[in-house]
């Protein structure tokens, strides 16, 4: 009798999930920055500026919101334009660096040097090496784990992409059985959604009365769908509830208005695409207060053809991340002090340059050799050790697929992800590496 009484049966929680997640939640919200595009360790964590790339012995830290260290004092090209192109560094946004506020893994190994495999590794914790472009992830993404194991609605998980190219829009859910679209995240690529095309074809949308017009319209649609569904005609993709759809449409309307009035929460400097993406990510956070938000950056990939542009983009990526963190702490009371941020590049860049030289006669870098498999990892927020640096060039610590298990641990469902057994064999939670 006692044994029977102790048996555990699955039950449906009010949120719709089976079982409660097993772990304690370390933070209520997570923002995961895919610090992507291919960042060399030499110009980021190692702070060597031109010293380890162009044969110019000038070192310094151009990511001084995220990392401790003094900026370069000569040949400043990464800032905004002053008397010379790029010679005015962007002022710091946060007084205490994220490195001091959180934990930095200074030398992390990643198995891939390709963007899409790297992004897949970040969002699904597995590279799925056989997976090609234009294909959805084959292993569950962090969005699906979060929605399934926390019982989250679609608008509680967001993927803010930098583009609709490079298969980025496919990363909001996988094709894995028992996960998939039913647990996918909402996705926007703000530069397109709220760019010229979006303004032209969506901003002028008619606003219908939710009860008197949309209510009957949906009832007619559901009647029509009852026949279609009986013959198996579902429409693939993520589903928001009618209430969420209405919220989403109101958000779009607000974004078109704010875009037109130039009042999007953009960073102080907003002269590249990543900073635009960051601004709209702030708006998503402010409106929906999601449990999980993933933001993708990529401007540093310009390093294929222009090293000076790469330095500028890296400096701006730091500026954008700092703005995002500062905005959460100062403009969104519901998330301030309750949000963790995880920052990981998808891969690095080469040790040896390609032959392309830029306006400063500096060489460009692609991503294909072993140096491309060196990245860093950072986490900051409640219950995350502060001012902790781990690993170095000689002692790598961490894996490019660690993000999923780290976020799962922060949100309290790490055991569920481990039990699913679908992450890379070397992946661990960053907490377990400390």
């Amino acid at each position, binding site marked *: 009798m006692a044994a029977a009484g102790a048996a555990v049966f699955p039950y449906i929680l009010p949120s719709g999930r089976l079982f409660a997640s097993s772990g304690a939640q370390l933070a209520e919200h997570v923002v995961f920055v895919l610090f992507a595009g291919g960042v060399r360790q030499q110009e980021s964590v190692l702070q060597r500026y031109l010293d380890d790339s162009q044969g110019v012995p000038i070192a310094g830290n151009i990511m001084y919101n995220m990392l401790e260290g003094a900026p370069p004092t000569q040949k400043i090209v990464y800032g905004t334009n002053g008397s010379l192109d790029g010679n005015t560094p962007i002022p710091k946004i946060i007084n205490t660096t994220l490195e001091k506020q959180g934990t930095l893994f200074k030398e992390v190994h990643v198995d891939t040097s390709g963007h899409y495999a790297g992004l897949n590794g970040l969002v699904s914790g597995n590279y799925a090496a056989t997976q090609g472009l234009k294909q959805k992830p084959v292993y569950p993404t962090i969005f699906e784990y979060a929605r399934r194991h926390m019982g989250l609605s*679609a608008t509680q998980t967001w*993927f803010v*992409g930098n583009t*609709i190219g490079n298969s980025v*829009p496919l990363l*909001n859910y996988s094709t894995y059985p028992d996960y998939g679209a039913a647990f*996918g*995240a*909402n*996705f*926007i*690529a*703000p530069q*397109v*959604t709220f760019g010229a*095309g*979006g303004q*032209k*074809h*969506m*901003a*002028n*949308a*008619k*606003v*219908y009365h939710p009860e*008197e*017009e949309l209510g*009957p*319209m*949906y*009832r*007619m*649609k559901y*009647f*029509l*769908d009852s*026949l*279609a*569904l*009986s*013959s198996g*005609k*579902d*429409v*693939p*993709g*993520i*589903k*928001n509830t009618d209430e969420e*759809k209405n919220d*989403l*449409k109101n958000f*779009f309307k607000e974004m078109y208005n704010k875009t037109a009035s130039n009042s999007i929460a953009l960073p102080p400097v907003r002269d590249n695409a990543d900073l635009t993406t960051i601004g709209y990510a702030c708006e998503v956070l402010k409106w929906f207060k999601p449990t999980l938000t993933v933001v993708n950056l990529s401007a540093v990939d310009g390093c294929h053809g222009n090293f000076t542009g790469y330095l500028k983009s890296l400096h701006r990526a730091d500026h954008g991340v700092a703005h995002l963190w500062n905005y959460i702490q100062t403009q969104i009371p519901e998330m301030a002090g309750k949000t963790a941020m995880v920052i990981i590049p998808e891969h690095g860049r080469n040790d040896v340059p390609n032959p392309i030289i830029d306006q400063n006669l500096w060489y460009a870098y692609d991503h294909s050799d072993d140096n491309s498999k060196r990245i860093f990892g950072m986490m900051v927020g409640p219950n995350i050790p502060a001012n902790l640096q781990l690993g170095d060039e000689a002692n790598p610590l961490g894996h490019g697929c660690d993000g999923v298990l780290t976020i799962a641990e922060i949100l309290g469902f790490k055991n569920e992800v481990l039990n699913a057994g679908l992450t890379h064999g070397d992946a661990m939670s960053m907490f377990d590496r400390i």
Partner: protein
Amino acid sequence: MKKLSIFPAITLSFLLALLVFSGCKPDPEYIYDVNQVEALPADADKTILKTEEQYISVLYANLFQKALSANELVEIKRVIESVGDKETVYEVILSSFMNQPGKIIPSDATMRADLDKFIEETYARFYVRKPTAAEKEWFRNYIQADANISPELVYMSFALSNEYQYY
């Protein structure tokens, strides 16, 4: 004379025999049965999901009775790709179409003057088929019961429905 009398006798005997034997033949055994016919839903012939381009092109043509330009199609497709929830982005784009001049939609008075005709024409326009008796009955009752239902809302429900996504 004798030869002539033999032939009728043989003929008569043959006819008698035929009559006797045919009269003894049993009735054929009839078996009544039902042919196996697969009953399919009205939308059964639509099995292929429209691409985003196909959906928008057909939707525009259904509403405006003319083709969408190639440039606009590319622009709209990019916008659709930039939003994860396709149902919502379709709804917003459709709402935007509804705010544009030039769409061809019957007036409320025309709809209510002959509901059966409106329903049949709407099914033909969006689904390229006739409504079933049950569908026609449901829509007739639903529209009659709610004065807020406009032809525009009916068109929206069809344009956003799952069957419309297939061909």
